[in-house]
């Protein structure tokens, strides 16, 4: 354990530092207004430090008793959850378990790589100090969402994440479409956030507390609580891009700069995390006897998979195409998690395949973040070089951009579920576990994967293969920083495919244990 060799005070304050450092970075970045390259370097350094802190945090959580770390802001000591005279937690609290650190790992890795990519990708843009400040602010929002143990803080960080994300989607406001996509994203996010706030109001009005651990122990099977559950479930499904509420996804992912599209993927997955936290922990006590919740997610997953995959086939815009595929991939995760929820009340089914479905869902979440990020980076590199988003105007680019073509092919093979790439391993786990629950689900998942593979074969053939086109004579390979970022993500795609069991043991298994450890989580909620 690395944390054993570090000063105890530093280690104890890791949960606060991982938020505070990118936040400080975000407020300093505007001061570098006249030095775009310095702002880029600053962001790479800050996000890199945040990633290292996430690794240390993972180590710290693992070394802690019960695989959980609690950090109380403003208390005499970070672990003091109950001030004298109180039987319930009243301060702002971070509660970090295996699921939280898995997400923190992704929420720092992807922004770091996005920052590296942006050094070359965004160098010709103006207002870079705002771009980088928003990027770090978005990282803070995502990290806060996945680390907090307080439902109101979850709302606050969701808002930070959404507002920074919307500003970044519309960052290239000289393109009308980007400004429109940013507006749509903030409009739908604000609508959803209001519903989250309304649900929090219901819970606070009824129980007088906002601590998730406390609430998980007192939630009742009442109409009011079910309304709160329904609103939270629908909103976080909307925010993670599940169909039929996915319409904002191709708009936002398609119009955002490439590095931001990659961050938007993990931003959506943070909402999926919130959905998991709500279903398994906050309302875990009543969802166990509510298989309807699992079935709602399964149906949303099925619609997302099919609609996303088929709609991608008719897209001309290279990034909207990938945006629809992102919807399809969200469907896989939502379906697998739905299967786990549907059998929560059946210990035998949970042991036989429910746990595997959850493992598969979370493993796919990691893979999705990686290969979807790679595809967005490669597609944006193509747009950057070819100066067009229309796939009908592209062809033969593999001759001009051989590295980008290889990186794109790796991402496409992974999303298509081809061995030995990472997507294959998680899809295999999903097929097997959902087949045991209902074979129809596995058949739909396989058909969708075939459509995805066929769709990416089309995209690769149309963009990269064929003779060099006269309108693309001046195309050159991407700048080095973009290639480095893509190479790292491509390497991870191959690595996670070759060593799936290692990723499962190291990251996924502790997260699944945390998802099912309602008693352990709730124990920090006081009386």
């Amino acid at each position, binding site marked *: 354990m690395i944390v054993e060799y570090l000063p105890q005070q530093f280690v104890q304050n890791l949960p606060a530092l991982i938020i505070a450092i990118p936040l400080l970075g975000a407020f300093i970045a505007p001061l570098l207004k006249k030095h775009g390259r310095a702002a880029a370097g600053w962001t790479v350094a800050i996000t890199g430090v945040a990633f290292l802190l996430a690794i240390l945090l993972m180590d710290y959580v693992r070394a802690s008793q019960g695989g959980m770390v609690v950090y109380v802001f403003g208390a005499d000591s970070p672990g003091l959850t109950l001030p004298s005279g109180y039987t319930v937690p009243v301060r702002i609290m971070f509660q970090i378990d295996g699921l939280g650190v898995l997400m923190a790992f992704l929420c720092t890795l992807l922004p770091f790589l996005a920052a590296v990519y942006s050094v070359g990708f965004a160098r010709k843009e103006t207002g870079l100090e705002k771009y980088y400040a928003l990027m770090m602010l978005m990282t803070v929002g995502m990290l806060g969402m996945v680390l907090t143990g307080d439902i109101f803080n979850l709302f606050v960080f969701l808002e930070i994440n959404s507002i920074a994300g919307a500003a970044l989607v519309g960052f290239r406001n000289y393109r009308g479409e980007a400004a429109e996509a940013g507006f749509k994203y903030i409009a739908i996010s604000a609508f959803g956030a209001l*519903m989250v706030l309304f649900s929090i109001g219901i819970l606070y009005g009824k129980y007088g507390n906002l601590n998730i651990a406390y609430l998980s122990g007192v939630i009742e099977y009442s109409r009011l609580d079910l309304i709160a559950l*329904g609103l939270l479930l629908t909103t976080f499904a909307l925010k993670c891009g599940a169909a039929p509420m996915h319409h904002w996804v191709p708009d936002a992912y398609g119009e955002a700069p490439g590095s931001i599209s990659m961050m938007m993927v993990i931003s959506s997955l943070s909402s999926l995390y919130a959905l998991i936290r709500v279903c398994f922990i906050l309302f875990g006590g009543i969802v166990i006897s509510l298989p309807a919740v699992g079935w709602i997610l399964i149906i949303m997953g099925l619609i997302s998979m099919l609609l996303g995959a088929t709609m991608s086939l008719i897209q001309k815009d290279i990034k909207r195409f990938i945006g629809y595929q992102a919807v399809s991939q969200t469907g896989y995760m939502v379906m697998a998690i739905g299967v786990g929820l549907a059998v929560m009340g059946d210990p035998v089914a949970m042991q036989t395949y429910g746990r595997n479905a959850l493992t598969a869902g979370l493993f796919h979440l990691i893979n999705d973040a990686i290969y979807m990020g790679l595809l967005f980076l490669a597609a944006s590199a193509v747009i950057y070089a070819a100066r067009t988003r229309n*796939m009908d105007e592209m062809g*033969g680019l593999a001759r001009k951009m051989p590295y980008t073509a290889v990186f794109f092919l790796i991402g496409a093979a992974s999303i298509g579920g081809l061995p030995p790439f990472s997507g294959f391993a998680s899809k295999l786990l999903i097929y097997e576990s959902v087949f045991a629950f209902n074979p129809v689900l596995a058949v739909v998942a396989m058909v969708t994967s075939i459509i995805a593979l066929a769709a990416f074969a*089309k995209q690769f053939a149309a963009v990269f293969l064929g003779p060099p086109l006269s309108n693309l004579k001046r195309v050159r390979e991407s700048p080095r920083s973009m290639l480095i970022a893509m190479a790292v993500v491509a390497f991870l795609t191959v690595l996670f495919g070759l060593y799936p069991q290692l990723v499962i043991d190291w990251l996924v298994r502790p997260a699944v244990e945390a998802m099912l450890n309602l008693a352990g989580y709730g124990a920090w909620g006081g009386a």
Partner: protein
Amino acid sequence: MDLTLLTGYGFWNPLLWLAFLLIFGGISYFLWALRGNPAYKPGTEQVKPFISGNPEPAKDLVHIRARHIYWGFVEGLRGYYSFARKMHTGDVRDYALWYLGVGVVVLILLVGGI
């Protein structure tokens, strides 16, 4: 490091897959090398396409564009795509309506106890 993934019902090992890939790749190469046409001479008149004596069009004009691929698939599912396209209006008010609609259905299912 162990490369085997235990799936609960079976296992997956990428090394085995790579071994099979190499074997079948080798067989494919052998067959290709064995049956290749020895009369084929690249860079000569014989490799030019024959289009009833017409001149060969520029490569740009014959390149298979994205819109050409899976045209038949999309045409075959015209009914489905007509519905799916109508669903994606691009109007943010419709996005909000879909969200509200799904929210209502979810609440009916949960609160109504269906």
